[in-house]
C-alpha cells in the first residue's frame, strides 16, 4: 500500500438529466490522470469508464456521487446513484441491450454498450443494484506498473 499522501481522492456529484454538463466529470478525471503521468492506455480506459458511467447517471438516475481514488498502482472509481435501479443486471450487461428512449437514441446514446463497455475496460468490476433505490458501480483499473518513467 502506498503512503496515504500518495493517494489522491476526489468526489464529483452528477445530476440526472443534466445534459448540459454531460461528460464534465469524466473530462476532469481524464485531465487529472494525464497530469499524474499515468500511461496513455490506463487514461483511455479510465476515460471511457468514467464517461459511460457519468452518462448512465445523466440518462437514467436522479443523482449520483462519483468517488475517484488514484494511487500509482490503480484508478478506483465508485459511482453510487440514487435512481430507478436495474431490474435485470445480467441483461443490462448484455451488449446491445438498452432501455433508452427514442429521444436518447436521437442524441446518439442508448446503443446498449454502456455497462458492457465499462466492464470490458475495467480490471475489477462490481455492480450492485436495487430497483427503486439505485445502482452502485465499483471499478478498478490497474496501471499495471505502466507508469511513465
Amino acid at each position, binding site marked *: 500500500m*502506498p*503512503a496515504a*499522501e*500518495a*493517494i*489522491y481522492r*476526489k468526489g464529483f456529484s452528477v445530476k440526472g438529466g443534466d445534459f448540459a454538463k454531460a*461528460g464534465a466529470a*469524466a*473530462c476532469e478525471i*481524464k485531465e*487529472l490522470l*494525464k*497530469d*499524474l*503521468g*499515468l500511461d*496513455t*492506455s490506463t*487514461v*483511455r480506459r479510465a*476515460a*471511457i469508464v*468514467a*464517461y*459511460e458511467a457519468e452518462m448512465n447517471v445523466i440518462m437514467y438516475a436522479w443523482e449520483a456521487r462519483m468517488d475517484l481514488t*488514484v*494511487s*500509482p498502482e490503480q484508478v478506483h472509481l465508485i459511482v453510487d446513484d440514487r435512481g430507478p435501479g436495474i431490474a435485470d443486471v445480467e441483461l443490462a450487461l448484455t451488449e446491445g441491450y438498452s432501455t433508452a428512449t427514442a429521444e436518447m437514441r436521437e442524441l*446518439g446514446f442508448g*446503443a446498449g*454498450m454502456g455497462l458492457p*463497455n465499462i466492464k470490458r475496460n475495467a480490471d475489477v468490476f462490481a455492480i450492485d443494484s436495487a430497483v427503486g433505490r439505485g445502482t452502485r458501480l465499483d471499478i478498478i483499473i490497474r*496501471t499495471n506498473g505502466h*507508469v*511513465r*518513467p
Partner: protein
Amino acid sequence: MNDKNFHAIHITKDKCIGCVRCLSACPTRAIRVGDGKARIIDQLCIDCAECLRVCPHDAVHSHTTSFASLEAFDYKVAIPSTVIYGQFGPTVVPNEILSALRRVGFDEVYDLSSICELNCAATEEYLNEHPRPRPYITATCPVVVRIIQRRYPSLCGQILPIEPPREIAAKILRTILPKALGIPAEKIGIIHITPCPAKIVSINSPATLAKSYLDGAISIRDIFPQILKALRKSDEDAMMRHLFPETLFSGTGMGWPLSGGETRGLKSHRAVAVSGIRDTMRVLDEVEGGLLQDIDLLECTVCPDGCVGGPLGVENRFLAKSRILELVAAAGEHAVVDQKDVSRLYHKNFLSFDHPVTPTEPRPLDGDPAKAIRKAKRREKIIVDLPQKDCGVCGAPDCRTLADDIVRGYARLEDCPFVKTAPKEKR
C-alpha cells in the same frame, strides 16, 4: 528542418503591451504574461492562431514564406488552397486567379480542387478497407494533428493516414516535373498559398512525413495585393480565361475549404464535420471518452467554418464562403478524377503517411507518480485559496493554471494580487 518545437506563431515584443487578451483566448493555456510581455510556452502551443485573431496591437505574427525568398529556385510552382477562389468578387473566375498568379511570378500554378476530390475518393477506399477503429479523424488541419499529439495522445491511431491534398499535389509534381522540365528537383520550388499560419509548421516539422514535399507557404494576405494588381491590368486576359477556360475544376474539391467539404464527397460512410478550436476540443474529448463510435469519419478544422475562416485570408469568411458555394454549384457534381487513378495511387501507398502520428512528450506534474499525486493534491488546495476571478493579473490565464504553474515551480502564490491583500481585509 524537423524541429519539434518549431512554431509559426510568435509574439513581437516591441508591439506587445502585456494586456491579457491572448491569455484567455488561448485554448491550450500556452501563454503567460511576465515583465509586461506575453510569452508562448512552446510545448503547449498548437499554432491555432487564436491569439493572432484577438491581439488588438498586432503583436502576434506568423512566420510564412516571403515571395522574395523564392528567388533561390529556378522554377517556381504555386499550389494555392481553394480558399483563394473565394477572395475576389463574383466576376473573377478561378482560371483568372490562377493566370494572375503566373503573372505575379510563378512559372506554373496548379489548381488543388481535383486533388481534393482524389483525397476524398482515397479516404473512401481506406474506410472501406478498415472497419475499425471508429471514428477516423481527418489529417488535413495541421492544428488538429498537433492538438491530438499533445492533448489526446490515445487518438493518434485514429488519424486517417492519407496525406492532405496539398502534400499529395506537391508529391505528384515533385515526382513528375524534374523529368518533364529537365530541371533538378532541388531547383524547383513548390509553394502552397494559404490562409493558414499552421501550414508552415506542417512543412517545416511534418508529423507524418520524413520531409514535406512543399518548400514553403505564402499567406493569401501577403500575396493578395500582387494578385489584385495583376488582375486589374488584364481585361484581355480575363476575357480569354472566361472564353477559353483551361482548367477543369472539381465541384467536390472546390468545396473542400468549407466545414464539411472534406467529407461531402463520401458516398457510403457516415461523417461529421466540426469547426472551431473549442468545439473541436469538445468533440475530441468525447471521442477520447469512447463516444461517436457510430461515426466513420470525423472532420475537424480549427478555424471557424473550415479553412475559409483561416486568419490569413483577406475576404471575410462569410462572403468567401458564399462565393465558393457559387463555384461549387457551377462546377457541378461530376467526377473530374478517374477512380482508376485513385485506386492505383492508393494501392501503391503513394497517398499514405510515411509514418503514423506519434504523441508528443507528455507533461505530467512530476515524473514520479507518487510525487505527481502529492502535487495534484497541493494544486487543489491552492485553487481553493485563489479568488476564481481568472483576471490574468498574475500572468496566467486563470486561477487553475496559476495553481498548476505554482506546483510545477514556475510561479508563486504571491503572484496573485488578491492573495496578498486577502488576510488584511477578511481574516
